[in-house]
């Protein structure tokens, strides 16, 4: 009965065609119905039915996202059929749906092995395809020997696929290298272009991960580069050389010639040409002729009509821009033209290139051009433009900007651009400039006033951050403003009810500052004994109002009172509190003002109260460095000289995992030892707290390390040159901003707010343990394979041994440095480090001596 059932079913089973047709007519219910059918059919024993069901299922899975993991076992069954058709369907299903978690993965191994050993090359190729897709560690391990045999097979088809599979196998199971590598390299010399392209492709991928291990094979690649005519192969070889040449400069010289040859050919394919150009730009950029040739070719790309070529040309230019700006400048007009291209990609690239070209002289001009574009473009691009103008200008504490007045007015303009959404950055910059650049404050206040007065801006929510910055600046530097009354009015205008409460609070507080300032001016102006004060203020060049009459001040006070009365009952506590503060203050001095008008008594209470308030606001806020915490000097008399070395051992375990997890984030990881190390160079730079303080601090950090701000590490001091002036004035006490901490007319030399820059020599010695241990083992395996290859090239062996030695050397060094960390002495570490670096350099210097000989 069962068999006749299957007979009936197989006669009436919906084939794939029917399924597809059905799907095109009806939809979702059809899918679920057919899924039901499939589930039923697939469980039957008849292999044909199964396979058709599987085929339908894979169709559904591929195109309609139906999950087919449940059918894994059935797929295995189908694959075990001897019929090719079924095998094909089965393997296809497997390749599509199996992942590392599929439970029936083990069952595949045997089947794959059988098929790999089969005489039918198509079956073999099927199995290889499948292996390439789903290979796991176990599979790779078990099937290595089969792959090895196949690498030497006589059938090109099989060999090709085997080569492709090798990539995956190596990735999952590095020991396979010992077995297969030799054959792989033999294939490099094959004359069959298909084979060659496959091998080269594999090497291309391998080299991308770990270039150093494949350096010995450079001669073979070179031969291919010179001889081959096949574009695919050449492109891949070029990629390999790009990676190799970046670690081996002499190779670059050798390779430059053939590359130029290829570029000069008449009808070279565009893809090849582009690859040549890219190679030249990225790794051979020191070779003059090659570079010039490449730039010339890029120009052709840029003027071509094909948007692809334009995009690629711009992209390539941006690769070379950092080192060779002249190339970009040559093509300036093309870049500017590209800004108005309709393709957003092209526009973006052009934008980046323009910004790369920016320097002190042309920043105004370029920004002008860009703002014009911004006004014309769609919101997305407009914001891109704004962002890319803001970024370079603010880089390195605004080192490009000479004329801050202009820049501030530019920021104000940006706020008015209709699509502007970069409120946060503009806000940040406004405040930043205000605190850092004293001379620009006048302009800042002017710009802020313009922004505040305009009621229309209050409706645009993207501008709120900017408005809050403007409000803060107006309040803080109100002494620069022409008309405090106007500002106060603007700060309290009715439309501010649209603002979110936090910003409203800022507005109110600024109004308070304005009020205090005005009152102070009023009262001091009234002083008969302080005309010098008034004169001083006028002579300092600040446009200040000292003509506060009784009427004007009382109208100011009244206006503020009126504006705030309504707010004293708002829901938001912040706003309410501030409003009440001001109202209370006003209440206190109101009658004092009236008294002032009549009497000439200088020492009224009101006057004193005002004086107090003024003091409150007189502290100048400065930028805070993130290393401020560290630099806080410890009070005298604190004995901190103890050697906390003993704790080092205990705390290492605690800190190590922390350090490693921090590595990936921006926060710089540290350990106790590092903090305590100050060596000679560091001591010579102006700076900071003595060792004792750092030990105590270090201890505290040990316990609460994660909560500390990122710190400027001692290594930074070692490696960065000429930063002495920057590190000196980290956090000057507020009222003592020394004259020399500001450069006249220009920007301040002030603390770098952002710490950064992990020292190169520092972290990497931990890398081998932490990450990519797999790659390590792979490269080591490759090296041993190359060493034991016995290809008859003695020199090659020598190189490899050198390579190996160097590797071993670095390992030894790493170990010794690790050991060193355990017993820290003061200057010892850094000197060891520098010597290690020297050793490393030496090793890499001696190595290349061998290579050029081979390239003859």
């Amino acid at each position: 009965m069962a068999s006749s059932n299957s007979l009936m079913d197989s006669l009436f089973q919906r084939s794939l065609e029917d399924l597809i047709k059905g799907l095109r007519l009806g939809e979702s219910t059809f899918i679920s119905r057919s899924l039901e059918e499939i589930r039923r059919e697939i469980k039957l024993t008849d292999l044909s039915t199964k396979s058709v069901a599987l085929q339908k299922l894979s169709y559904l899975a591929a195109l309609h996202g139906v999950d087919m993991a449940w059918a894994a076992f059935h797929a295995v069954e189908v694959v075990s059929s001897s019929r090719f058709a079924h095998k094909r369907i089965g393997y296809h299903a497997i390749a599509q749906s199996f992942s590392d978690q599929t439970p029936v993965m083990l069952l595949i191994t045997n089947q794959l092995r059988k098929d790999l050993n089969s005489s039918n090359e198509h079956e073999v190729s099927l199995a290889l395809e499948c292996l390439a897709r789903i290979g796991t560690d176990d599979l790779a391990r078990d099937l290595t020997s089969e792959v090895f045999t196949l690498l030497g097979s006589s059938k090109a088809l099989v060999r090709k696929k085997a080569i492709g599979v090798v990539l995956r196998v190596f990735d999952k199971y590095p020991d396979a290298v010992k077995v297969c590598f030799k054959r792989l390299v033999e294939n490099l010399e094959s004359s069959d272009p298909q084979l060659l392209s496959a091998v080269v492709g594999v090497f291309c991928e391998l080299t991308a991960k770990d270039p150093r291990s494949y350096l010995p094979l450079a001669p073979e690649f070179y031969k291919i580069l010179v001889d081959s005519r096949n574009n695919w192969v050449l492109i891949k070889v070029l990629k390999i050389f790009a990676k190799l040449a970046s670690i081996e400069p002499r190779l670059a010289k050798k390779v430059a010639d053939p590359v130029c040859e290829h570029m000069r050919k008449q009808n070279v394919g565009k893809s090849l040409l582009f690859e040549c150009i890219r190679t030249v730009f990225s790794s051979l950029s020191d070779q003059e002729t090659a570079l010039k040739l490449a730039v010339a070719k890029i120009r052709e790309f840029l003027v071509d009509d094909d948007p692809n070529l334009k995009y690629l040309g711009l992209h390539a230019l941006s690769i070379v821009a950092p080192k060779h700006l002249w190339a970009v400048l040559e093509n300036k007009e093309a870049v500017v033209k590209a800004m108005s291209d309709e393709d957003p990609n092209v526009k973006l690239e052009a934008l980046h290139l323009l910004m790369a070209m920016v320097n002190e002289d042309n920043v105004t001009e370029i920004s002008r051009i860009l703002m014009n574009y911004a006004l014309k473009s769609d919101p997305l691009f407009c914001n891109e433009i704004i962002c890319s103008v803001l970024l370079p200008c603010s880089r390195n504490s605004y080192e490009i900007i000479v004329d801050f007045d202009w820049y501030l007015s530019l920021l104000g303009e940006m706020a008015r651009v209709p699509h502007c959404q970069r409120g946060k950055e503009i806000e940040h910059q406004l405040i930043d400039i205000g605190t850092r650049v004293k001379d620009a404050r006048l302009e800042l206040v002017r710009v802020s006033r313009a922004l505040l007065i305009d009621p229309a801006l209050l409706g645009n929510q993207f501008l709120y951050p900017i408005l809050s910055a403007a409000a803060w600046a107006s309040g803080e530097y109100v002494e620069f403003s022409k008309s405090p009354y106007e500002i106060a009015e603007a700060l309290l205008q009715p439309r501010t009810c649209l603002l979110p409460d936090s910003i409203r609070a800022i507005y109110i507080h600024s109004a308070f500052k304005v009020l205090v300032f005005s009152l102070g001016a009023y009262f001091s102006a009234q002083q008969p004994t302080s005309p010098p004060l008034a004169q001083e203020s006028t002579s300092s060049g600040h446009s200040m109002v000292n003509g506060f009459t009784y009427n004007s001040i009382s109208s100011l006070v009244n206006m503020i009172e009126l504006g705030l009365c309504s707010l004293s009952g708002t829901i938001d506590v912040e706003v309410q509190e501030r409003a009440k503060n001001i109202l209370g203050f006003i209440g206190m001095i109101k009658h004092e003002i009236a008294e002032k008008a009549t009497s000439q008594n200088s020492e009224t209470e009101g006057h004193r109260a005002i004086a107090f308030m003024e003091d409150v606001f007189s502290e100048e806020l400065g930028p805070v460095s993130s290393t401020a915490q560290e630099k806080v000097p410890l009070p005298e008399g604190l004995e901190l000289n103890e050697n906390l070395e003993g704790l080092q051992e205990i705390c290492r375990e605690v800190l190590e995992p922390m350090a490693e997890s921090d590595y990936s984030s921006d926060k710089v990881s540290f350990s106790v030892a590092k903090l305590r190390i100050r060596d000679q160079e560091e001591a010579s730079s102006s700076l900071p707290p003595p060792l004792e303080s750092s030990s105590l601090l270090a201890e505290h950090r040990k316990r609460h390390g994660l909560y500390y701000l990122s710190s400027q590490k001692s290594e930074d001091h070692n490696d960065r040159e000429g930063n002495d002036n920057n590190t000196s004035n980290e956090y000057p006490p507020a009222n003592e901003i020394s004259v020399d901490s500001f450069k006249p007319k220009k920007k301040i030399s002030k603390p770098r707010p952002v710490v950064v820059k992990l020292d190169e020599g520092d972290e990497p010695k931990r890398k081998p343990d932490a990450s990519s241990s797999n790659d390590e083992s792979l490269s080591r395996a490759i090296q041993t394979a190359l060493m034991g290859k016995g290809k008859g090239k003695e020199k090659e062996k020598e190189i490899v041994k050198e390579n190996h030695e160097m590797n071993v050397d670095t390992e030894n060094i790493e170990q010794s440095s690790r050991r060193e960390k355990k017993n820290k002495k003061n200057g010892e570490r850094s000197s060891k480090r520098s010597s290690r670096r020297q050793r490393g350099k030496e090793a890499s210097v001696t190595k290349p001596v061998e290579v050029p000989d081979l390239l003859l």
Partner: protein
Amino acid sequence: QIHFVLLVSRQGKVRLTKWYSPYTQKERSKVIRELSGVILNRGPKLCNFVEWRGYKVVYKRYASLYFCMCIDAEDNELEVLEIIHHYVEILDRYFGSVCELDLIFNFHKAYYILDELLIAGEIQESSKKTVARIISAQDQMVEAAKEEAGSISYIIAQAS
């Protein structure tokens, strides 16, 4: 390295997907949705490369189908364009003036052809003739198998 291949019709229907990197089913649908949105919205004169999630996607439109391949940032886009063209030409040769309908009804054949063309995300066969030859050889095997299966004697043998 090619991460995946995607064929999408002008109306947004998926015609073929092949994944060379591990993606779960949910991720796959998400990727398909996102990419279709991006690519289908691009105008005709724009360049054929899109940056997406740190990768590059190269696409080309043939009639009503968009052929998309996702590659790493360092790969050569023009090369991938040629690979796509290569694939289309092979399909054309195989089906004889291929149209979308062919791909719809013979999607598995399109898969097999693609498998001959790319292995592990790398191109393995750049000669159209060879690919055509291999595929037809495979087809013959399938045909032979089918014939055998279709024969009455076989059915009877199965049933008993």
